[in-house]
């Protein structure tokens, strides 16, 4: 072993990177959430005209690599005259990607809500939109929590990909420090630990959230 | 080992088993001679199945010992797999291997435990399947067989190991009524052929006509044991009489 070279002065920089990571993750998840719900509704309730394009979108973004999608947004869009900052490109690419996955999770959750629920709502005189908003979605959102939590944690880890477009998130900052001081091993062990703690904290919070909003009798089929 | 047990195939001595706070077996002992058919009856939940599973240590008894032909099954030093290969076990839920055909199920034991070559094992399996009347179902998967057929395959699986005795744990309890007969037929034939068997069952007709001795268990102890003629017509214990009259009413038990 040749010693562990890590200065405490690196920590604030890494913390900065961590902050950016959290920002990017939050932003892309939020974007993905809104778009994902819309796509899911389009797939479930839209006629052919809406559900097919939604399907194509979902297949494309789930079937192609995230890195490729990122480069399409950051390097490709300028070809079409659209120049976005690195931060926006990162959030957009990640957001478009997670939207496709979230759409599938929401679709599954919506379809898991019992048929009778929509019928009962319509029988009361609610319009389709009202029924979706007041009866279906509140249930679907509870059912989707496990899958959605999974996706959130996944995006937290995949957000590291933005280092490749020179963003100084936790990963990017780590690479910069390591490149300057030639201590890749030490820096990345610490970076790994940061991610481990972050993931742990996030999973615990999500588990707490799930328990808080739990309603007896409502769960995904197959879930104990 | 005690005196007078020299000719016993199986000796079960003072078995105790507790689950949590409940003591399910409170000191059960009996012996089994070669070729004997013993039937164990009694109300549900009295530890009959647990007793069977203690014999081949699928469930470990808390206290007590078991000997198979003089070898102590319950000793720490014994190779339990060798012992289990000599004791056949037929489950209430059949437990056929889902991923294998009937033939595959029957020849797995001979191949992997007894070390037979594939051709030998296959031939043996075909014979045993024929013995239980399912030669034509050799290539069917368990899911493609009726309950009665599955249970018969399960018996063939036990037979293929050439066991010294076979334990039957409520073999017909999970079957639809019209399928019970085909399984009992196989078991009766086995008894006639001289197989040593212990059967836990509610089938009184079977017990009456096939058993050499019936053991009545309740609340974890043996209440009474004796030949069917004695138990059914002149039971010594009041509980035995009570139980038998209720059951005979319920199951109408004369012949199978």
């Amino acid at each position, binding site marked *: 072993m040749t010693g562990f070279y890590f200065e405490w002065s690196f920590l604030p920089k890494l913390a900065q990177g961590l902050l950016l990571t959290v920002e990017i993750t939050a932003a892309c998840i939020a974007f993905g959430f809104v778009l994902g719900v819309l796509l899911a509704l389009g797939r479930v309730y839209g006629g052919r005209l809406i559900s097919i394009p939604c399907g194509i979108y979902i297949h494309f973004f789930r079937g192609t690599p995230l890195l490729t999608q990122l480069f399409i947004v950051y390097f490709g869009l300028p070809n079409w005259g659209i120049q976005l900052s690195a931060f926006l490109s990162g959030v957009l690419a990640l957001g478009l990607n997670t939207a496709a996955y979230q759409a599938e999770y929401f679709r599954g959750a919506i379809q898991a809500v019992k048929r009778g629920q929509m019928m009962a709502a319509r029988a009361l005189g609610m319009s389709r939109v009202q029924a979706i908003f007041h009866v279906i979605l509140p249930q679907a959102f509870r059912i989707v929590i496990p899958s959605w939590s*999974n996706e959130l944690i996944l995006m937290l880890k995949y957000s590291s990909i933005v280092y490749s477009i020179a963003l100084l998130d936790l990963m990017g900052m780590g690479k910069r420090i390591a490149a300057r001081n030639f201590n890749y091993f030490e820096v990345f062990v610490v970076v790994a630990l940061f991610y481990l703690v972050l993931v742990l904290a996030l999973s615990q919070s999500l588990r707490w959230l799930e328990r808080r909003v739990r309603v007896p009798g409502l769960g995904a089929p197959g879930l104990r | 080992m005690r005196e007078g047990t020299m000719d016993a195939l199986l000796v079960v001595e003072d078995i105790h088993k507790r689950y949590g706070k409940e003591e399910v077996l409170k000191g059960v002992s009996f012996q089994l001679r070669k070729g004997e058919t013993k039937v164990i009856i009694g109300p549900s939940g009295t530890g009959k199945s647990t007793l069977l599973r203690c014999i081949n240590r699928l469930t470990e008894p808390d206290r007590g010992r078991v000997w198979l032909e003089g070898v102590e099954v319950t000793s720490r030093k014994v190779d339990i797999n060798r012992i289990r290969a000599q004791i056949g076990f037929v489950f209430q839920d059949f437990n056929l*291997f889902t991923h294998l055909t009937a033939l595959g199920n029957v020849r797995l034991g001979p191949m992997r435990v007894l070390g037979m070559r594939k051709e030998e094992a296959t031939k043996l399996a075909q014979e045993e399947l024929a013995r239980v009347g399912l030669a034509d179902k050799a290539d069917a998967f368990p899911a493609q067989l009726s309950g009665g057929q599955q249970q018969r395959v399960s018996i063939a699986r036990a037979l293929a190991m050439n066991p010294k005795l076979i334990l039957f744990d409520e073999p017909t309890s999970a079957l639809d009524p019209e399928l019970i007969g085909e399984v009992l037929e196989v078991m009766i034939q086995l008894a006639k052929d001289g197989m040593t068997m212990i059967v836990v069952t509610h089938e009184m007709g079977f017990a009456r006509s096939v058993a050499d001795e019936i053991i009545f268990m309740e609340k974890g102890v043996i209440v009474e044991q004796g030949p069917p003629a004695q138990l059914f017509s002149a039971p010594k214990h009041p509980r035995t009489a009570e139980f038998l009259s209720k059951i005979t009413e319920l199951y109408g038990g004369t012949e199978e």
Partner: protein
Amino acid sequence: MEFFLKLGQVGHHLPMLMRASLVNLELLGALLVIGFLIGTLVALLQVYGGRVLSTVAFVYEWIFRSIPALVLLFLFYYGPSHFGIDVQAFLAASLALGFRSSAYQSQIFRGAIQAIPSGQMVAARALGMSRLSAIRHVILPQAFRLAIPGWSNEYSSVVKDTTLAYAVTLNEIMRYAKTIMDRQYDLAMATFIVVALVFLVFTYSGNALLGLVERRFRIPGLQMPGATGAIL
């Protein structure tokens, strides 16, 4: 449209792009095999190991699932040099992604093993099979069949992750695509779209193949209880 012209230009690079994509496929094969072997072992330890072994297995799984793939790649590529060992990009990437995949695959296999009714093991032991023999002849044949859908998901996931090896200088398809772009910036969009399409083909043909495998090895009566929804 201008775009199709660009696509045409990219077409000249197609042979080289496809050659580079072979590297991705090789990496895919290597990491899946490593992931499969270790994943099966870890799953078995989690289900059948004693308290110590299963805890170690669970910790292993947690570590390799919680650390981002990119960080693992860097650790495996740059890390060994800290100890004086030089590691090639392909080896580092295979190990990093392989261990990571093993953590996800172990979860799939564990789910499959636990979906098998307990009576199967009991029946095998009753015949006199040792635990190991029962696992080999009764449990695993069923578990692997049950695991195919979940494993398909893992395949889809990692085939795309091979592009991450770009970060440790592996000469795979994304790295080559970037050089095309560096030479002719206006080909960027077209090039990456082509790369994306290549992966669409890899993903769908892989899934179709796995679907065939599932049908070929299907056994009536052998299936997962209830809903599946394997999520990674």
